[in-house]
């Protein structure tokens, strides 16, 4: 069952085409990753899908309603959490929950029941009277997500929700996202961290307003990255990187501690090309050259560089 259907959606600001004929579908209850560089059109698309920005052309159905013709009905179906965690810092935990409950029309027994749930997922039971500003980042983040879904929306939009949160808090947050999607809420999430995109069931990548890739993490790695990724361990990796980056068989280079990662194109045929190239500087001793499994970051850098 589809939760979001986007059909040829476009948005122009003056002459600038921010979103260019984008179409994709999101299944009910899935965790859907929406990726792209800054300025690629992510926020513009999300604002249209939330019914707060009118498309120039095309349409999208969100929770069964058209964003073009029924934006107010769309708003009742969704929750939204931004990277700034839209909580009121000078209110207590409970006041924030009551405020969002009120905004979404909850009261009485229903509000109490959902309040209990929000307190539980954010580990704040018994701490209702703490001032929100005093909470650690990870707790605040879960409270923000709890308030964004306090009305049990069909769909929740998370815009870079994990910016600046530590590894342990981030993992707890993703477990919570999985729980929410298990209960049938569709989660659409944007992130700059490609390792997080691995947690998504399906992903799209947009660049300069256009959709350039769509699939599961595994199919993206298989179908979109024609290049191989090679890891080289050697002395003086920075000098070796600078030599290799001039080779026609190398599209991109990157340093990982004492290792270099190369993205090599179809001109590449064997390790000797690499060792011959590095040997032009006889001070560099090569320890090993091995192909490795590409990351989603490798795939996306490749697609974005190609698109330039």
């Amino acid at each position, binding site marked *: 069952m589809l939760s979001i259907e986007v059909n040829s959606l476009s948005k122009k600001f003056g002459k600038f085409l921010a979103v260019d004929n984008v179409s994709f579908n999101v299944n009910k209850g899935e*965790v859907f*990753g929406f990726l*792209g*560089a*800054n*300025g690629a059109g992510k926020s513009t698309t999300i604002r249209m899908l939330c019914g707060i920005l009118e498309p120039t052309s095309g349409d999208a159905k969100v929770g069964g309603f058209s964003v073009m013709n029924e934006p107010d009905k769309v708003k009742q179906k969704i929750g939204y959490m931004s*990277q700034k965690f839209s909580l009121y810092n000078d209110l207590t935990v409970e006041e924030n929950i009551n405020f969002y409950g009120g905004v979404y029309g909850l009261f009485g027994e229903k509000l109490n029941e959902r309040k209990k749930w929000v307190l539980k997922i954010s580990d704040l039971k018994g701490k209702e009277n703490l001032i929100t500003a005093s909470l*650690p*980042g*990870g707790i605040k983040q879960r409270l923000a997500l709890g308030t964004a879904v306090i009305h049990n929306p069909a769909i929740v939009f998370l815009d*870079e929700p994990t*910016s*600046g*949160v*530590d*590894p*342990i*808090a*981030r*993992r707890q947050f993703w477990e919570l996202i*999985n729980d929410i999607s*298990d209960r049938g809420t569709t989660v659409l999430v944007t992130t*700059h*961290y*490609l*390792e997080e995109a*691995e*947690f*998504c*069931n*399906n*992903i799209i990548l947009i660049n300069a307003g256009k959709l350039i890739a769509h699939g*599961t*993490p*595994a199919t993206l790695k298989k179908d979109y990255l024609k290049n191989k990724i090679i890891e080289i361990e050697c002395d003086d*990796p*920075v*000098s070796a*990187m*600078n030599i290799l980056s001039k080779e026609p068989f190398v599209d*991109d*280079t*990157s*340093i*990982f*501690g*004492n290792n270099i990662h190369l993205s090599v194109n179809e001109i590449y045929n064997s390790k000797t090309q690499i060792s011959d190239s590095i040997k032009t500087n006889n001070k560099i001793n090569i320890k090993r050259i091995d192909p490795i499994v590409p990351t989603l*970051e490798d795939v*996306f*850098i490749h697609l*974005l*560089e190609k698109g330039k």
Partner: protein
Amino acid sequence: MQPIIKIEKLSKSFGDIKAVNKISFDVAKAQMFGLVGPDGAGKSTIIRILTGLLSYDNGSIKILDMDLKKNKKKIQDNIGYLSQKFSLYGDLTIDENIEFFAKIHGVSNYEGRRNELLKFTRLTEFRDRLADNLSGGMKQKLALVCSLIHKPKILYLDEPTTGVDPVSRRDFWKILANLLKDGVTIFMSTPYLDEAERCNKVALINKGKIISIDSPEKIKESTNKTALEIVCNDVKNAASIIKNNTELEIQLFGDRMDIISNNYKDDYIQIEKILSDNSIEIISHRNKTLSLENVFILKVKNENVEA
């Protein structure tokens, strides 16, 4: 080789809270050193102490062979600091921001260095643009240029890539790699373990203490565990079945799961049986090295159990 930063039994308390608790470590010249830990672990406190912005209670710190307490000013002349907030002036242009930082550091003939740094970071064509009108990635590069104008020997970066997109981030790492080549030592803090993989040496800290310090490869080897990757149908359901039937730790991804394993072969046999009993078919599996993130979470959990 003489360490460029040498810290012994460093402690710092805020009231009753021991933010930094008897920490000792060395950083070698031209190394990329990463300080990794959760919020509140003491990362920013350590960086602020090393830059001389914050006093410390006990221990000794030698930077560039000088005692930090006795030679603070001299050490500060030789360091650059890029904070999380990129302290730039939004209503000044790129050129003017750099000029401002040059003057703060008492660099009088900065024009040549400025041109060189703008070229190095590929910002030259934007030099007349106001800082407010730059993208996140460009702001980050400008802040880096400002912190390098006085040719520091050590560069401190406090969570430098928060909010920066992947393409700009990769660009940023390339620039840093070339600084290492020029002999600059880079000391950074990050909450992102995949970024820590880019360092030569990493210190994992938690609650003001070092829980592990070594190269990323050695830290990963130190656990004697591996990650067993399973790709199967209905992976969410499969993960909860394994969770209910074993003590194994599972990390769920969108289309697969990683199971932290002490013994790959035995664990796989057990999992294969549990899943086939529940009519779930395994599509593929492989044994992988743990990620630094997995190792970090294991070590922090162990600490908390022992404490």
